[in-house]
Every structure is written in structure tokens, then in C-alpha cells.
């Protein structure tokens, strides 16, 4: 039987040549994975980043929409304490170092380096999560106090969810790098994970600004 095949009973459609006449392309020589935009995972990750970035953007838009509803912002509470959030910014920025190291190591197929850097990232992620607990405790509002509290908790909550999932991701990856099995794709995973970590980091900066500094804007800027 040839392929594509035709049912004998069906109307003969177009004559589709077997194709053997053309020049075949041998792809066996091609690599079996690729970094960056060559990889499917890179596109998948960017798709997720687009979705989650949109969620963050819309939540921030909601924040400003609610802020525009009244005359006071925060509605009935002091702004969040600066300490823990700012500390988190610093640790986040510091986390770029092991993160970049992980990415570089992965792209060099340096298993030991990738292992070290990934576990370093996971450790810093743990620090961030612990700091996050203090951040929640020093928001000076509850989610059910008023709409300000609701949107601030939601914003910080969404970001924490990303922090947590990416931390989990990094930790699992780190363990996998220690225990195996290892194949080339794992290095792509490490590289993509580093990219996602940058997203979590980059999204924190505007969210930090909104949560901690917008409530401190002088009222003249308030609508």
C-alpha cells in the first residue's frame, strides 16, 4: 500500500504523487533539542508568562480602578510597612546571580554547575517565601477589611502563588539534577526555568511599587 492511500471505491481525487520524485530531507543530523526560542518549552513558557503577566496587569489595573473610586487610599488603614517588601526586592535582585549562573551552566551542559546554581536558587526562593510571610503580616490590612485590603492581598497572593510554584519547580529540578535521570532536555528545562524565574522577579518590581509606594503617593496625585 502506498501512502497517502486512496480507497478504491472513492472518487479518485487529485493525483497525489508519491513524493519520491522530490528531494527528501534527512533530519537525523539535526540536534535533538535546542535552547531559547528554538525549544517548544520556551514558547510554552512565554505563553504562560503572557497569561500571568496579563493577570498581573489586570490586577494592577483593578487596583487603580478601585483607588479611583474613593477619596482616600488606602481606604482606612496605614500603608504597608516598607521593611519586608523592600528586603524581598533585594533578595529577589540577588537571586538573579544564581539564576543567571544556572542558565549559563545549563547552556554549557555543566551539570555540577547547574545543580549548584539551581539549588542556590531554590534556597533563595525559600528565603523569599519566608520573607513573604512577614510581608503579609505587615500589610496592615486584611483581605476582608475593605476593597483596598482585598486587592492588595490578591496582588500579593497571586505573586506568591507564582513564587511558590516556581520555587517548587526549581526545587524539583534541583533534586532531579542530583538524582537523575539526566538527558539533554534537562538543560533546556533549567534554562527555561531560569527564564521563568526572571519573570517572577521582573513582575515583582512593579507589584512592589504598587503595593508599597502607591499608598504613599501624596494625595495630590490621588484622583
Amino acid at each position, binding site marked *: 500500500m502506498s501512502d497517502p492511500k486512496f480507497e478504491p471505491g472513492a*472518487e*479518485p*481525487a*487529485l493525483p497525489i504523487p508519491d513524493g519520491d520524485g522530490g528531494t527528501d530531507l534527512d533530519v537525523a543530523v539535526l540536534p535533538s533539542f535546542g535552547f531559547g526560542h528554538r525549544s517548544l518549552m520556551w514558547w510554552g513558557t512565554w505563553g504562560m508568562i503572557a497569561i500571568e503577566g496579563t493577570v498581573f496587569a489586570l490586577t494592577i489595573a483593578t487596583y487603580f480602578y478601585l483607588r479611583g473610586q474613593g477619596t482616600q487610599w488606602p481606604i482606612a488603614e496605614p500603608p504597608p510597612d516598607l521593611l519586608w517588601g523592600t528586603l524581598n526586592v533585594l533578595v529577589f535582585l540577588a537571586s538573579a546571580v544564581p539564576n543567571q549562573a544556572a542558565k549559563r551552566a545549563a547552556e554549557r551542559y555543566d551539570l555540577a554547575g547547574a545543580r549548584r546554581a539551581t539549588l542556590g536558587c531554590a534556597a533563595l526562593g525559600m528565603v523569599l517565601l519566608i520573607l513573604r510571610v512577614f510581608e503579609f503580616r505587615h500589610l496592615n490590612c486584611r483581605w476582608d477589611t475593605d476593597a483596598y485590603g482585598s486587592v492588595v492581598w490578591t496582588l500579593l497572593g497571586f505573586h506568591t502563588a507564582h513564587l511558590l510554584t516556581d520555587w517548587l519547580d526549581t526545587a524539583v529540578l534541583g533534586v532531579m539534577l542530583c538524582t537523575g535521570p539526566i538527558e539533554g532536555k534537562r538543560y533546556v528545562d533549567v534554562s527555561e526555568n531560569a527564564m521563568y524565574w526572571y519573570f517572577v522577579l521582573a513582575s515583582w518590581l512593579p507589584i512592589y511599587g504598587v503595593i508599597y509606594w502607591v499608598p504613599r503617593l501624596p494625595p495630590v496625585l490621588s484622583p
Partner: protein
Amino acid sequence: MSGLPLAAFLDTPPLGELSQDALRAAGPQAAATLALWWPTLALCSAVLLGILIALGYALATSGRAVRSAPGDLSSLANREPGLVRAVSVGVALSTVALLGLVAASAATDRKLASLDTAGALQVHVIAHQWWWEFEYLDADVTRRFVTANELHLPVGRAVELVLDADDVIHSLWIPNLAGKRDLIPGHTQTLRLRADRAGVYRGQCAEYCGYQHANMALRVVAEEPGAFTAWADRMRAPAAAPATPLAQQGRAIFENGTCAMCHTVSGTPAAAKHAPDLTHLASRRRLAAETLENTHDLLARWISRPNALKPGVYMPDQAYSESDVQALTAYLETLK
């Protein structure tokens, strides 16, 4: 005046006799909208017709083939300038038509906004699940009065309806007079309109507002200024004391029983605000936000088993004795 030849077949009421019809205007707002509607409809019909003709022409003039026929890819090589021209003209015409509609819409918007409201009658409309409260405002606060579900308007005088919602979002729509406006908790809106033609119009809530959304209607009575003034004066008067013993007994039940927990009858101790003001209930044509005719029998049934007639309504069912129902009905019928 009928905008629709179908009207006879459809058995719609004549204009001003409880009509609820966006195609027959009884005021400048609805008329301006109609003035936009008919040309828009004509234009759109023309466009539809044009496309159907083009489709018919295309189907009639194109060739036919069978399933096995080979595809023709010559178009990839040829630019097909005739088609480019035809499609460009079509798109350009559509764009011009749309821009024309945008302009016409904006012009109509402006016309709607330009209703002269100097000396307008102000009515505060509060939408409740599932009835309408109307507070007629007046600079002299003693001349304010409250009524429900029946909105009387003087013909020829602009009216400014100040809209608020008590619970969920509602929408006030009196199609013969004007387009709708939502009543949104936390946001006060206004709707300006004028009735130029005396008559009775039906309006209805147009935003889904819960189980009895369907039965949240209102009656708009547009009347000559003299008649309106007389009506308003009647509305301002407190309820007269009932004369018959039966009605007096009904009043006692009303004031000492459950009724006074929600309803107001002006001039009596009943002054609750959670249900329609009943001071002049008997002067209203219908009950329960236009749900029932205001007849003796229906009123009696409504008093005791409202949920059988309007399931979900907040008025509770009650096990009144027959004599209590008769007494209450007798009392309510004195509230002219």
C-alpha cells in the same frame, strides 16, 4: 402612527394605551432615537440586500464543478485587478456607510443630551427587588410625596429622573419615551425625558434582577398639566380615615399586624420603607408592579398568598382569616 404593519396581527395596544413599544415615540427622546432607527434600518437593509444580491449574482454566474474536479491555483499568479477593484469599492462603501452611522449616532446622542430641562419635574426613582419607588422632589420639601409603580408625568414638561438602586442592578426602560438607564448600587444616574403625548405607557426593568425580574414593570401615565397637578395634590394628601367599621377593622389589622412593618400609609403610624407606599393604593390600576389588576378579588388573594401570584416576592404569605382578608381589602380600597 403604527410603525409596523404587523401591529394589527400582533395585537399590540394602540399608542398610549399601555403600549410598550420602541417603535412608536411619545416624546422627543424616543422620537430622536426613532429618527436614527429608521434610516439605520434602511441602510442596513440595503447593505443586506446588496450582499444577498452580490451572493446571488456570484452563485448565478460562477461555474460549477464536481468533487473530483481539480483546484485552480492560477489566482496565485494573477493579481485579479477586477476583483481587487470590486472588493475595494465594497469595503470603501461599507466604511463610508459606517462612518455615516457613527456621525448620525453622535448627532442623535447630542440631540438626546440637549433636552431642555429648565423647570423640569424631578422624580427620584429607586428600584427595589421587584418594584419601583417614585419620590416626587420639590424645592419645598413639604410638597414632596412618594408613590410606587405608577409614574405620572405632565405632558410637555421635561422630567429628570434621578435613578438609584436599593439592592441589585436594575434598568429603567419606558420604550415609548426614552432609552433605558441602569440603576446601579453606588452610582446615581439621571434619565431625562419628556412625554409629548398624553396616554398610558408601560415600562419594565430591563436588567436581570432576580426571580421576579419579569414582573417588575411600571405604568407611566402622561397627562395634561392640569390633570397632573390635580393628581399630585391628591397624592400629597394623607390617607383619609376609613368610614365603615369593616374598613376600620382592616386599618387596625394593617397598623398592628405585619403590613405596617414594610408599608407606609401617610397620615397613619404605618411608615415603613421596604415596600410600596400604599397611601393611595386604590387609585392605582394594578398591583405588585403591574403584575395584577387592582380588583377586589385579586387584592384579597394578593394579601394572603402573594407568593402564589408572584413567586419569590418578599411579601410574606399569611394565614389570614377570611374576615381579616375582607377587612384589610375594605381598608385598602379606601386608600384612594
